[in-house]
């Protein structure tokens, strides 16, 4: 059967990529973070960008589902398992991205159990761990033979604030740093949440569309339509926050802040920023907002994909706008951080950064891990016959998910 071969092939590819990533990580463990493109100026890069991105992906889906559960918006009910699965997988991926970023990953457990309380990173470690537990419990509850509505609601009550917190705290990792004006904004947490909603929901949409295309999931157009409408609202809010942020920065006359913002508008980050604006905000917004466009599945898929990628660009921009310029920007700059041959680039004044093959490989491996979790989850959890308080009989011979309650 081609489906089976494709499935196994897909798994094989994922496992292979994970293997590559793992090998790359071993290489990095053996040689230190010197094998990355990071430096004493750009001291955080792809790993942390991916970390915040996946935290966003994770929080977004769950907030929508939990919100729907609590608001009694039952039309989204069929998506809840998938959403929780995606959330869980994303948070695993996000957490996994922390490890290769650490100089001493073997010491990371200490943070979880005895961190320094004032550090937002400690809050984040804990909230992520909590969040993962919640996602697992949620999944367990949803796949019980008898799903308990009460339990799900309690879980929704717990998970909603946690999901909001997860992303707020991730934002505060950056936003509470007085050193970096581009991050040090009260709007950063709302902005992270709005982006999380955009990317998380868009990812859900993409996966749903893919699964539906593969006939692995049945979902009604109306659900997609309302998700699309929701997307338009989220993108609008996100775009508005971003506009407010950038406008304030430009108008601020604070040199550091303005310089960093100008990097985005017409500096080295402009090639990332304008696509983010155009393809990640404007185009998807139009598609989602205009019913005529929204109803076309191809466009919906394209818009969702663009929204997912747009937020990735946004994460890159948020990181690099702040990291590219050394804080005390005077010659000769900050050291690159490695033994450099005479005449080589030792000092950095504009921190340029490009991930190395090691970083790409590790990142690919971790993303493959997430994809594997989703794949297996779809197969073994999402597509399991569900039992709702009022059981719906699955149609024989067809992949079945929960249908909307009448």
């Amino acid at each position, binding site marked *: 059967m081609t489906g089976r071969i494709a499935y196994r092939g897909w798994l094989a590819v994922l496992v292979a990529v994970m293997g590559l990533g793992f090998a790359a990580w071993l290489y990095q463990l053996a040689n230190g973070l010197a094998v990355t493109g990071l430096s004493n100026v750009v001291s955080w890069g792809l790993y942390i960008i991916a970390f915040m991105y996946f935290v966003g992906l994770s929080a977004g889906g769950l907030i929508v589902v939990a919100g729907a559960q609590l608001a009694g918006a039952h039309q989204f009910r069929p998506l809840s398992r998938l959403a929780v699965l995606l959330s869980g997988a994303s948070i695993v991926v996000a957490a996994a991205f922390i490890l290769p970023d650490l100089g001493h990953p073997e010491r990371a457990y200490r943070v979880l159990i005895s961190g320094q309380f004032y550090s937002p990173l400690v809050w984040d470690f804990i909230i992520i761990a909590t969040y993962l537990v919640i996602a697992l419990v949620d999944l367990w509850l949803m796949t019980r033979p008898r799903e308990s509505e009460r339990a799900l609601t309690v879980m929704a009550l717990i998970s909603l604030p946690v999901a909001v917190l997860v992303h707020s705290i991730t934002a505060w990792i950056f936003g509470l740093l007085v050193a970096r004006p581009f991050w040090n904004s009260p709007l950063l947490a709302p902005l992270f949440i709005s982006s999380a909603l955009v990317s998380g929901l868009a990812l859900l949409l993409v996966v749903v569309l893919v699964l539906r295309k593969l006939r692995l999931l049945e979902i009604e157009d109306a659900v997609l339509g309302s998700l699309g409408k929701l997307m338009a609202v989220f993108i609008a809010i996100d775009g508005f926050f971003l506009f407010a942020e950038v406008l304030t920065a430009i108008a601020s006359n604070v040199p550091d802040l303005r310089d960093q913002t100008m990097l985005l508008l017409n500096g080295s980050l402009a090639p990332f920023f304008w696509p983010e604006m155009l393809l990640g905000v404007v185009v998807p917004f139009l598609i989602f907002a205009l019913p005529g466009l929204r109803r076309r599945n191809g466009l919906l898929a394209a818009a969702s994909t663009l929204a997912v990628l747009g937020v990735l660009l946004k994460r890159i921009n948020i990181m690099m706008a702040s990291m590219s310029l050394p804080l005390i920007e005077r010659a000769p700059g900050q050291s690159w951080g490695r033994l450099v041959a*005479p005449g080589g680039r030792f000092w950095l004044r504009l921190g340029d950064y490009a991930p190395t093959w090691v970083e790409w490989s590790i990142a690919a491996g971790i993303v493959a891990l997430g994809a594997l979790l989703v794949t297996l989850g779809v197969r073994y959890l999402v597509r399991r016959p569900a039992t709702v308080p009022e059981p719906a009989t699955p149609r024989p011979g067809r992949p079945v998910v929960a249908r909307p309650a009448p």
Partner: protein
Amino acid sequence: MADSTTGLPRLTRRRLIGGSAAAAALFGLQYGAGRYLMRLPRGGTAHGQGRALGVDRMVRTVCSPNCTGACGQNAWIRGERIVKIQQAADYPDHVYNPRGCMKGLSFIQSLYGPDRVRAPFIRAGARGEGKWRQVTWDEALDYIADKLKGIIAKYGADSVYFFPQLPGTGPIQKGAATRLAALLGASHGTFYDFNGDLALSMPITFGVQCSDHEAKDWANSRFVLVVGSNPVETRIPDAHFLSDAADNGARIVVLDPKYSATATKADDWLPIEAGTDGALALAMVNVILREGLGDLEHMAKYSDAPLLVRTDTRKRLRESDLKAGGSSAKFALWDEASGGPLVVGTDRLGLPEGARPALSGSYAVRLADGKAVTVRPGFDYVREAVAPYTPESVEKITQVPAAKTVKLARAFATTKPAAVIFGAGANHWYHSDLTGRAFALLSAVTGNVGRSGGGISVYVGQYKVRFDVSSWWFPDGKRPNFVPPMYMVHGPTPTMNPAIKPPKNGFRAMLVSHSNLLNQSPNLNKLFKRLNEEVELFVVIDFAMTPTAEHADVLLPAATWYEKTDLIATPLHPFLQLMQPAVPPQYESRPEVQIYRELAKRLKPELAKYYEVDEEQAIATILANGGPEVAGITLEQLKKGPVRLNVPDPEVTFHDQIQDLKPFPSRTYPFPLAATQRFVQTGRMEFYKEEDGFLELGEQVPVYKPPFEAEDAAAKRTEYPLVLLSPHERWRVHSTYSNQPWLLEINGGRAEVSIHPRDAESRHIQQGDLVEVRNDRGATQCWARVTEQVRPGTAQIYEGWWWNRYFRKGRGVNELTPDFINPTNEIYFLPNVWSPVTAWKEVLCDVRKV
């Protein structure tokens, strides 16, 4: 509580709070449990900060590269190795503490770094090819001795050229080479002149090798005029005395074409056209004389100003001219009190009781032979010479606004004491003797000579020897045949002083120690030609694998100043100090005394007895015979720490002349006084020179002569429009520390040519571009550093970068530097005192993008 319509629990505020509380509880539980389980104390543990490591011992020695700073350093030893070098900071005069810069502190990288020459090598390929055969010391020494014997037999002992740079920075060890050269009758290099650092104006004016106040005397100054000197960058341990001077209310003015590090600290920086400093000095004197601000009494008492000059011969009027049987070593002034000439002796400065010397005018004198001649006081010539240099006319030369020059002259003349710090930027020119004489005149005419906080101090090089080393260097009174290396590069000149005897059959063997000659000689291509055509044996003794070492036929590993014993004293801080081995010579290195002992034994067994002394015995001998400066100082004292030389405090040159009326010159070691007395036969500061060489060139009094006369005559200015300056940089002492890894991290590790954005733009050159710098002598490739720091019309390559590593192509800046010999430099010859001075900065070039 279930919603009545949906049957689902409703979201209520209570539930939301409850949910959040549950989340918070989870959070807290994890945290608290973890903290309890780990039982980690809040705050760090001491061991986690990095354990303090102890050392086993500490040895005080002296950092002795060619900056001649001679900074006392402590070497801290753990196990067998030096793990830290830090300033000893033990000078009894606390203002000198701490003394030492980052270069010296980084020396563990030289000691144990990858460029250390670790064993003797004999060349196995072509010269400079980099193929070596590692040999034993015996093999290397036998090989050298055999070759030398053959060369001496074939060409004569004078064809062997010893080049132990710089004896003043290690008179015992480096003197061991001089000693052997003397015993063999071999030729021997000179350095102070070749390095361009000898200010010939000093022997011309004062009859001494160098005039310098100890650095701490800067702080006593109330006006410091820094001329082409950059102490903030190149005299790091002493530079703070400028800040001290400023703290004491002094005004600091810097004269430099570039915005130097010192200029950043100055009250005023006068950007000046390169090579025109002399004109500015003359304009200042012009203003001072015109406005009556000069101290003419000072001039009359201490200088040749009142001494009469015959207008017919342009020579001085001597007692022998005036009366039969009179002395030709006595001179006359015109006494306005008696209205006639008055003979003055040369044994004492000052004026005869009651004399009122004329400093201007023409007077008729009847000579002993009855002839009537017109005579004029020397100062009348000076006044006449200075007259054309009005601030307005000089502005066209220096580009310093006339009004500024006037202000400078007035401030300098009316603020006492005022010091001149005269540096390489002013001295590395063809006519640097004239420039120096003009500034000496400025100092004298304002009465600052010999005064604390005043004077003219030359801090270029500073290789002068502080005590009499003849007993060690010149055994049995034998001296080597000193040949200035400029004649090796350039070849003999028609005007060469007859006292100079270049080897009859050429330079056939060279023993170069602690010198990067093949990097640091002017006109390198010419020197390489000579090396390859003439030199049959090229021995290099060094601790670093320099470009010169790369070209050795035999390369011997030398001990550094942390591995041997010597006796050190240099001028900037007058302390006698002991260089002591902190560790034994590392790897297979050896101190020079040992090397030359072995070589002497092999060359002539009868010479062995001259080396049957160890360093401490040699030091004891020198201390016993070293002259008044070291009288009474013992080795035991020195082992305890630095001892101040027996010199006035603060040490001010010509203090004895001004205070005690002792005639000029003071003694220049290692030469007897007579050797330098002939330079100033009047026993006074001489601003009028009567030697034929000066008369022929019209340089009997300080005048200004522009740079690049030869090139301008050949219309080379259009082809090479940029002046190429090659100043010292803080990261190196000449070429030493070129390769220091820490410093390379800081400074970028590649040679750069600095050019002004305007010059860069017209050549389409951008920051960081690979460029070629060329003139008729050579071409080299390095990287462009586009900066407002340098004057438009100038290009600047800091000297010293090892060309084989830090330039892209060519032999570095010294492919382009000239081997000019100014005939005034040949009027007398005294090694390192009156000898051809390299005009490093008299260079035109062009820069183009590669």
